[in-house]
């Protein structure tokens, strides 16, 4: 207690001191009064609206419209804090209440026409609009976005990809209007990433013309199925197809699991996955099938069909390729996940940086005012590199969306590899950013109302769903190796996956790196390409060495995991950098170019500093690593004056940030308690 009194005395003395030191206006000492960063910071060096346009990239009017719809509805839980209205779900509600609110919000958005054209719309414009609106929904609540994403991207996407005209006619419009609610029953208790190993069976009965779906063991129960626990009426079920005792591999079937009143159908059992560390607004469930009979027509038959008399027909003869075709909807999910990770990072950075521009701690001169958090170089080093990475990855996300839109049989491989790499890299980046921002906000970061801490839970599933990040990165490395082997065997140049740089001579890194070189785009590109090229050579050498020792291809991959991981990162970082450079090159406004150049340099140099591969494989000498480190600090201090402009360019309306991003003194004042 004495300690507390002592501390109170010190504090009040300190505050009073300041009150005397400053002029006798309403303005109290700088450590207790809130000054909006817009007032205290320097004028912006670039046009924030233009930067937002560049970052969001498309459908700005549609985005603003949806923000408007949410802000103006009581359903989105508006609360007045510190003179401003904020919207965010009430995470203090029970799991069941959160799920019901999520459903009500979907109904509201449906009623206002938000989902119009999401499945029936044609062309790239409809797809870009869908992405844009989904991104806005994520900014409000990831659970809401997931629940919608399951229905449209997974269930709806499965109907689009695997179904034929009869399925499209029957389901697409009904799905778009929520006449039915779909889910995507792929994962099982015993099998997740290894979809080919699932154990649910669909057996064709020629005499009745029906498939019989079964869950033969407990490990075959469908697990984590979003929307299944409470709301879904229909499911796309992934099953092993058995015809006359022959297993034809994994196929997809439409089953109705509930009637329109929500009663579970006979021969189906559904249980809840229970409370989760996040995303409690999504009703994840488990499903068992007990001799469920469904008509032959319910087989989604774009890839393969079964004739009434029980003949298996498929245009794709190779079972591996046939299986790959079934994973197509997961690509759009992966694209959406990668992009959403960037928006989550943007939210947390906008909050943490705004807070760091208004919160002070410790004075470094006698009787001087306390310093703003962001004026500490150490605080800059914590947040600004994450800001630079988020910018680079934001451009990478835009590139990925455009790549996905151009999808064609020729591009399938590229899209799979890039979306896997970006999904892993961007979601890891987000979780890391959230943790750093949470800590950078101190105790305030602990409050749910300040969003960042809660986002950690809500986004924690990202490295897992739609493919475990490590598994995805291994697939990236494998694909690169396949490309390598093909090019070497045929003695032909590389021309896919951005590996064209392998055709040129090996870049040379100057022995002594100076500031201007470190900031040079060519150097930055060179050193990322060098890392990728060298790691790919090493990976190929290691695998072939194991093969020479008699290991199988698979086990050679398994034991070469260390280089494989380094290679996956190298590929991803190089592709991200190139999309950032491209975005920068397309900008004509000089003031934007300058700041984008600084951000790009900070992104690259921080990667050089953080990834041990650069020293491990000696792409950087220790001297050069020291030069890089010095330059990182310098870039942080150069970017610091534009920090507010840079987070303002994220285009996230104030109402979707949190009280500590604005007047946190007013938000926490006694009068706020009384009201």
């Amino acid at each position, binding site marked *: 207690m004495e300690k507390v009194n002592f501390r109170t005395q010190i504090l009040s003395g300190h505050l009073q001191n300041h009150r005397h030191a400053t002029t006798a206006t*309403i303005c109290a000492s700088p450590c207790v009064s809130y000054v909006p960063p817009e007032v205290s910071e320097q004028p912006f060096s670039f046009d924030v609206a233009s930067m937002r346009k560049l970052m969001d990239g498309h459908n700005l009017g549609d985005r603003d419209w949806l*923000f*408007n719809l949410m802000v*103006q*509805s009581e359903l989105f839980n508006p609360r007045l804090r510190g003179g401003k*209205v904020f919207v965010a779900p009430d995470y203090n509600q029970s799991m069941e209440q959160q799920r019901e609110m999520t459903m009500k919000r979907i109904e509201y958005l449906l009623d206002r026409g938000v989902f119009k054209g999401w499945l029936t719309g044609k062309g790239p414009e409809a797809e870009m609009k869908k992405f844009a609106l989904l991104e806005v929904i994520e900014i409000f609540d990831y659970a809401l976005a997931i629940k919608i994403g399951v229905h449209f991207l997974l269930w709806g996407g499965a109907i689009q990809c695997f179904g034929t005209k009869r399925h499209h006619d029957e389901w697409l419009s009904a799905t778009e209007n929520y006449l039915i609610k779909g889910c995507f029953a792929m994962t099982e208790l015993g099998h997740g990433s290894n979809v080919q190993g699932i154990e649910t069976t669909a057996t064709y009965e020629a005499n009745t013309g029906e498939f019989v779906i079964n869950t033969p063991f407990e490990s075959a129960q469908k697990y984590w199925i979003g929307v299944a626990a409470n709301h879904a009426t229909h499911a796309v079920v992934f099953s092993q197809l058995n015809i006359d005792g022959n297993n034809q591999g994994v196929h997809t079937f439409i089953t109705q699991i509930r009637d329109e009143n929500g009663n579970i159908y006979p021969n189906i059992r559904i249980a809840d996955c229970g409370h989760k560390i996040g995303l409690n607004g999504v009703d994840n469930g488990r499903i068992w099938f007990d001799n469920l009979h469904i008509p032959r027509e319910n087989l989604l038959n774009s890839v393969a069909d079964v004739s009434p008399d029980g003949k298996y027909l498929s245009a794709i003869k190779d079972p591996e390729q046939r299986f790959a075709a079934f994973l197509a909807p997961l690509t759009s999910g992966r694209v959406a996940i990668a992009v959403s990770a960037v928006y989550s990072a943007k939210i947390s950075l906008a909050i943490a940086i705004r807070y760091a521009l208004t919160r002070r701690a410790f004075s470094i001169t006698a009787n001087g005012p306390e310093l703003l958090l962001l004026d500490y170089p150490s605080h800059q080093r914590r947040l600004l590199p994450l800001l630079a990475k988020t910018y680079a990855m934001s451009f990478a996300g835009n590139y990925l969306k455009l790549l996905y839109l151009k999808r064609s049989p020729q591009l399938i491989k590229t899209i799979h590899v890039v979306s896997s790499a970006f999904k892993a890299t961007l979601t890891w980046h987000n979780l890391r950013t959230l943790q750093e921002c949470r800590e950078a906000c101190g105790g305030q970061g602990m409050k749910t109302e300040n969003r960042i801490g809660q986002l950690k839970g809500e986004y924690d599933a990202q490295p897992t769903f739609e493919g475990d990040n490590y598994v995805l990165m291994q697939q990236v490395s494998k694909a690169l190796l396949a490309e390598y082997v093909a090019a070497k065997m045929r003695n032909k140049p590389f021309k896919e996956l951005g590996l064209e740089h392998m055709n040129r001579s090996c870049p040379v890194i100057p022995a002594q790196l100076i500031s201007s070189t470190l900031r040079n785009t060519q150097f930055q590109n060179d050193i990322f390409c060098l890392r990728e090229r060298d790691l790919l050579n090493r990976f190929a050498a290691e695998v072939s060495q194991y093969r020479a020792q008699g290991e199988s291809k698979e086990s050679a991959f398994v034991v070469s995991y260390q280089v494989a991981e380094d290679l996956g990162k190298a590929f991803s970082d190089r592709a991200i950098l190139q999309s950032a450079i491209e975005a920068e090159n397309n900008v004509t406004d000089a003031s934007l170019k300058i700041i984008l150049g600084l951000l790009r340099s900070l992104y690259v140099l921080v990667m050089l500093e953080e990834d041990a591969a650069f020293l491990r494989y000696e792409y950087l000498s220790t001297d050069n690593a020291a030069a890089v480190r010095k330059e990182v600090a310098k870039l942080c201090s150069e970017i610091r004056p534009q920090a507010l402009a840079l987070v303002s360019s994220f285009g996230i*309306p104030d109402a979707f940030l949190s009280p500590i991003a604005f*007047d946190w003194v007013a938000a926490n004042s006694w009068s706020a308690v009384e009201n």
Partner: protein
Amino acid sequence: MASISSSFGETDQVLVEEKSSAKIFTLNRPKQLNAASFQMVSRLLDLFLACEDDPSVKLIILKGKGRAFCAGGDVTAVVRDITQGNWRLGANFFGREFILNYVMATYSKPQVSILNGIVMGGGAGVSIHGRFRVATENSLFAMPETALGLFPDVGASYFLSRLPGFFGEYVGLIGAKLDGAEMLACGLATHFVPSEKLSLLEDALCKADSNDPAIISATISEFSLVPNLKERSHCHRLNVINKCFCRRTVEEIILALEREAADKEDEWISSTLQSLKKASPTSLKISLRLIREGRLQGIVKCLVREYGLVWTVMRGEINKDFFEGCRAILLDKDKNPKWEPSKLEQVTEDMVDRYFSKINDEDWEDLDLPRRSNIPPHAIAKL
């Protein structure tokens, strides 16, 4: 204190009284329905800035002489300047007006506006941003700009967008006329006081001798009542308004209204549709986007954006609807403006974008809002 005894006539446009710690400013152009001229706006700005630094002033009361509070900016003068080639003067007028709006929106002392009559356009700008807005049975509010080929300015993209649901879109797009009861119901007014009690209210406010918003509010409440909404009030239509005016585009709003009308014959819907069809198509699209963007941003960005738009409109390079609207409504009074483009679908997204994009004009200067460091939180969020 600014000098009151200026030798120009401008001082007369705002009468100044001092009662204990209250300053009473009266807009004094009764013949012009107190239309805000450049002089009036400049004078008000000087007065507000001076009072803010004057510790003896605790409260400001703003009212109008005659049957209007303020019928808006003096647009006729602006158009005259522009047609005489002085379009810069026009832009200056708006700049000064917006700075005044900003100072009021961020004012550290309570402002009580007595809205006993017409409150339109610029009149809303000098009152709604203030802390307290007192409506009476004589109040008549409207933002009629879309019918003039302009858009709701004076920070309307801030305050209209903060009205409940999508009422702001409705009021801004069709120029709906609201009475005092409706102003109170939707939040444009903070109090409703019968006009017969206004002089008592004024005395009480002066006697209150306080700058505490809670005390001022309580003082006004002693005279205020909650009037019944008239049977045909816009406010009874909030459900339909929300349903239709939340739509993404002006075309979709019209479509939604027409769908409502198809279900049942309704005079209110047909007059709403009528207003939309009479307004400048370009103005409607600009206004909708302004409100939608304004809803997500603070007062500063709203005013800065509106100022950019005013500049573009004054330049008349994209279209000349504003001049045509002023001709048809204010000068020739034939009430038959020929909008160009004349149809909504002819106003492309690109054209609207041009209004909102960065201005590349060597004469262009951003709206220079004064830096205000000690803004109390309650000063910013009034609606």
